[in-house]
């Protein structure tokens, strides 16, 4: 049985009831919104109704959500659960970092914004040696070269490039 445990690790206890309650609340809200967010089409059989599959999925969410909450090893909220929820909220910091990066790309360009994003984030993660920053810069250049120049992924040019002469602007838009 030890092998089975290593393949399917047991669920963590802390924060489990907070998540189950939040999920259940979300599912119930969706269920209540069902008549308002889907339309009933007249002269159409039940399986062709636009709201049929949302209804099936939401009912499944509610039923499994209730059962999951009921079968939890500990349903009562304790201090450790709130601490865990606080850790989740701290994860929002990375969401903000990511969104700042996203908003910078159309303004300053892919390469500069990636540098602006990666190097401070490396610092924020606690790395202070110049080696880490050199590696970070190297990583940024290699990512931009690989994706933008070799794979030619679609990332538009920046507003900042408009200030450059035409030849340089074209080069920057195409490559960085």
């Amino acid at each position, binding site marked *: 049985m*030890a*092998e*089975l445990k*290593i*393949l*399917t*690790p*047991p669920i*963590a206890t802390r*924060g*489990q009831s907070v*998540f189950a309650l939040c*999920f259940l609340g979300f*599912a119930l809200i*969706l269920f209540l919104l069902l008549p308002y*967010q889907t*339309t009933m089409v007249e002269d*159409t059989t039940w*399986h*062709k109704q*636009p*709201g049929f*599959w*949302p209804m*099936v*999925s939401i009912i*499944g*969410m509610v039923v*499994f*959500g209730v*059962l*999951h909450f009921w079968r939890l090893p500990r349903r009562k909220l304790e201090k450790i659960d709130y601490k*865990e929820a606080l*850790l*989740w909220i*701290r*994860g929002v910091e*990375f*969401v903000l970092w*990511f*969104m700042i*990066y*996203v*908003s910078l*790309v159309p303004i300053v360009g892919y390469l500069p914004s990636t540098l602006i994003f990666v190097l401070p984030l*490396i610092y924020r*993660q*606690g*790395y202070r040696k110049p080696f*880490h920053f050199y*590696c970070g810069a190297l*990583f940024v250049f290699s*990512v931009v070269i690989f*994706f933008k120049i070799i*794979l*030619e*992924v*679609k*990332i*538009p040019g920046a507003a900042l490039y408009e200030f450059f002469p035409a030849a340089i602007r074209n080069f920057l838009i195409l490559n960085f």
Partner: protein
Amino acid sequence: MENILLGFDVLARWDVVLAILCGSIGGVIIGAIPGVGPAVAIAILLPATFSMEPIVGLTLLLGIYGSSMYGGAIPAILINTPGTPVNALTTYEGFPMTTRGEARRALSLAYAASFFGGIFSVICLILMAPILAKVAPLFGSREIFLAALLGLVLVIIAHRGKILAAGMLACFGLFLNTVGLEPVKYSSRYTFDQSWLANGIDLIVVVLGLFAISQAYFLMSGDDVKIRVNKVRGNLLQGFRELSRHPVVAGISGCFGVVMGIIPGVGEFTAQFMSYTTAERISKRPKAFGHGSSEGLIASEAANNAVPGAAMIPLLALGIPGEALTAMMLSVFYVHNVIPGPGLFLYQLDFVTALYLALLILNVVVVIFLMFATNFLVQLVRIPNRYLGVCILTLGFVGVYSLRNNPSDCAMAAVFGLLGYILRRLKLPIIPIILGMVLGGIMEVKFRSSMSRVKEPLDFIDRPIAAMIFAVIIIVLLVHFLRVMREWEPRKERKWTYRKSSSKFGRLLFNRRKHMLDDRGKVLRNLQLMSPARKKED
């Protein structure tokens, strides 16, 4: 034979060859870095493959998928940390061998077993292709709907100990698929009058959020671990010689890998577990298992590597992905308007054969690469976790933004990343959401088209294959419920044995009061009242 030659003809292009090389070598490198894994890499590269031809994009992704487990065995054996989640069982046998000073033997054995598993599955598939070509056209809308339903049921049941959570998350995946404009009546579903939700929630955005971005958050919020690794010296080919001494274990493990790979929703974990336990049962030295047994290592690695090839069967023959990675590959087909399913085997068998041959070639490429690059790959495990998190987040951006250059996609991916981060912390499964989304789309379309020909409920299963799949669903559910009941009884018994009454204080007082008021309590109370001291007074 003709098909094989046609398959080689499809592959004989410089871009396909480059894709095989990049995919296989890249996959090994990704697998060797604990914390990245093939799902993250495939999610990031997925939008980039949309601009490639289907065969090029698919061989690249297949290369990563098929070779990552080779790389994952390296940290599993040397530092007791699986490179990919499916290498977890390899640590059981590989690391004890390393502590005994047999790292080279363990690594070479893992490579040989992986190679055997990979080649075995491809040979099985090439032999099965003509049968599949005959069976696949028998699948109509009803059969595909039922097969998708079976896949969903199996995905939920496969998460032992977390079945209810897996069910809840699979239904959430089903719901995500319904958001947006309904494709037939064009009425909006859960768009909240937001134009950016009208097109629905893109699978790639969800995949990138749940796999790549969440992994980045998870690594960045964790701690770095100091690791010491030693160089591996000597010839790594000796494992092939040792593997030839255990043909039964290797063969059984390969078979388990192929069978479990074909069944949607089951995958590597079950294949690995079943082959490992079978190898333990048939071994002459079962006590060596868990202490560096070569047979255990062969069983684990051969079963793992036999799955990727087999997992392509339900995808190619029916258009039903059995796991998250093949679900991602399905989107490559859709982008290029190549519809996987019965038609693919009928009209594009050369394409299917080319994919199998690509799998065969990549196994050879990987083994040659590993013979020379193992020592370099060993050093990759020294990249700090949080640093790796920054890199993954940066790469995650390219994946999401290059899709439609839409900031709302990025915001959505960031939010799904947060959800994935929470699920990772709670050790809840992510895969049911992805499969719920993919299978939900297939089920909705196929259910609608099949119901138009059904007058009575039993008409749905009046065809032999539909009836067979329906029977399998019923059997799977029955077996599961019987097992739940069997496990329920001892649990109840244990509860009665150890906890005669509630340990809660309020309940304790209530029980005592109740007990004092019942007939037996009254007798006892009277006896107490009639204590020797009182008797004397009387």
